[in-house]
């Protein structure tokens, strides 16, 4: 009796995560699709529209999509190589004593609130760009990219390092015994063997970068223009939601949910692409 009942309770608890997911997806999609389904707004105009002026009933998020895309790509281009190389260094090359100090410290930094990276960005990176590049305003796409790249470093390093360390010793020994150099062994044997873990590290870092909101608000400048250079002030998708959610209502609020849907799809798409790249690299 008790056994049966407890089994049911456990099942219910497990189902709660399914229920939560359904609720989240349901609510966000219901709210976000409402303008297009019931109020006659065009979804294409929403995606490709250049102007976001809620007071004039203009809801175009193309500049934000571009900003999010550029910011994420830029952060990946800077953060992934540095992060992976650091992970390889810590796992394979660093003297044991050095790795023993650095690894936990980096792991710790993966846990500090991302807002602090934004605070640092605003206090140091933004003025630095402003002064050295002769900008009117240092808050820019480049500042976002730098902050995101730094922010994803600890995550990438920690996860990738664990993956590389998990590669069995015999792989290395096998390669070295065949006369390969230590560095050659690392890049030809160890890194490919840790590929799935490294992919996971990149996906996690990416997730952190693309979903980051508050740190980005501080350094993005938040202008509603289509970015054409790294020094333009930008407003990525996440930022748009956080900045306006506080006072939005009606269609305006629903359009913020629609922005959320786009962000959501964006993440699914990027993960999908990365998974594809990952599986191709394996063959």
């Amino acid at each position: 009796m008790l056994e049966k009942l407890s089994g049911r309770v456990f099942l219910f608890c497990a189902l709660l995560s399914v229920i939560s997911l359904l609720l989240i997806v349901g609510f966000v999609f219901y709210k976000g699709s409402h303008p297009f389904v019931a109020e006659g707004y065009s979804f294409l105009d929403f995606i490709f529209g250049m102007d976001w002026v809620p007071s004039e009933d203009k809801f175009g998020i193309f500049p934000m999509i571009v900003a999010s895309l550029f910011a994420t790509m830029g952060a990946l281009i800077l953060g992934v190589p540095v992060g992976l190389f650091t992970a390889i260094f810590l796992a394979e090359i660093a003297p044991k004593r050095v790795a023993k100090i650095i690894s936990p410290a980096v792991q710790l930094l993966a846990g500090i609130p991302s807002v602090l990276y934004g605070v640092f960005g605003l206090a140091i990176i933004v003025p630095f760009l402003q002064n050295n590049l002769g900008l009117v305003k240092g808050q820019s796409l480049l500042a976002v990219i730098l902050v995101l790249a730094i922010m994803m470093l600890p995550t990438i390093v920690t996860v990738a390092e664990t993956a590389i360390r998990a590669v069995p010793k015999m792989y290395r020994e096998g390669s070295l015994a065949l006369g390969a150099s230590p560095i050659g062994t690392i890049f030809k044997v160890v890194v490919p063997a840790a590929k799935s873990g490294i992919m996971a590290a990149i996906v996690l870092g990416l997730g952190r970068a693309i979903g980051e909101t508050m740190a980005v608000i501080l350094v993005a400048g938040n202008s509603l223009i289509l970015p054409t250079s790294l020094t333009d002030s930008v407003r990525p998708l996440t930022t748009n939601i956080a900045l306006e959610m506080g006072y939005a209502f009606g269609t305006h609020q629903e359009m913020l949910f629609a922005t959320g849907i786009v962000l959501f799809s964006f993440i699914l798409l990027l993960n999908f692409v990365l998974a594809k790249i990952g599986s191709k690299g394996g063959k």
Partner: protein
Amino acid sequence: MRKFKDHLLRGCLWASAFLTVAVLIIIVGYIFYKGFRLIDFNFIFGDYSPVGHGGIWPMIVTTLYTIFISLIIATPIGILAAVYLQEYAKQGRLVRLIRYATESLTGIPSIIYGLFGAVFFVTTLKFGMSIIAASLTLTIIVLPVIIRTTEEALKTVPQSYREGSLALGTTKLQTLYKVILPSAMPGILSGIILSIGRIVGESAAIFLTAGTVAAMPDGIFSSARTLTVHSFLVTQESGDIELAAAVGIVLIVIILILNFLATFISKRLNKADY
């Protein structure tokens, strides 16, 4: 040629590691350098006031509230869900669905959780911008963390413990409470500590569900701001980097303590494991 390539790569590895470490040291160093002058007894335990840098006690209390409420809900649910997945379920479509849902929840960015919390807990359930709305949103955010770490911990419990106990004529439930969960406890606790870190670091979801009121909350139905949101707001609204950094120090110290606790507990309990 190959030698040259090897040297080049080795150089890149050293340079990258140096860069990473340098950047991270600069960030933490900067925050401590900027903020440490503000930190004293009154800053930590004083009430907030908009003039000067104000105390942060209300934000600390709010942060503790959110940790407490979300964990008190998420921990039992998460543990029991993991128990279901690892100990009770027959592997099949239902389990795959639950795993899929749990994984997907992990991948959702916090701003989306914020949107959901704002429309579901704040508006639909009429909690208003409040600690409770934020805590319930955080519950969903940390649930997958607790489920996953508990599952991992349950996986490490040797099958022989289960068989040994059941072969003595105990029920599944008795085996669970007396043998399996105690053995999995270190892993479960690390998961909970990890969740606390996640809650403390969260900003966007809380910003949209708890609001920004900078005062001591009257209870769980008042709007309030956590430490992390406070750090964000003082930077954004008044550019008070010193204050933001001082709050940042408090946050980093909390994370440090949590990490230390996690290591300590898992080491300690593993030993107590006889």
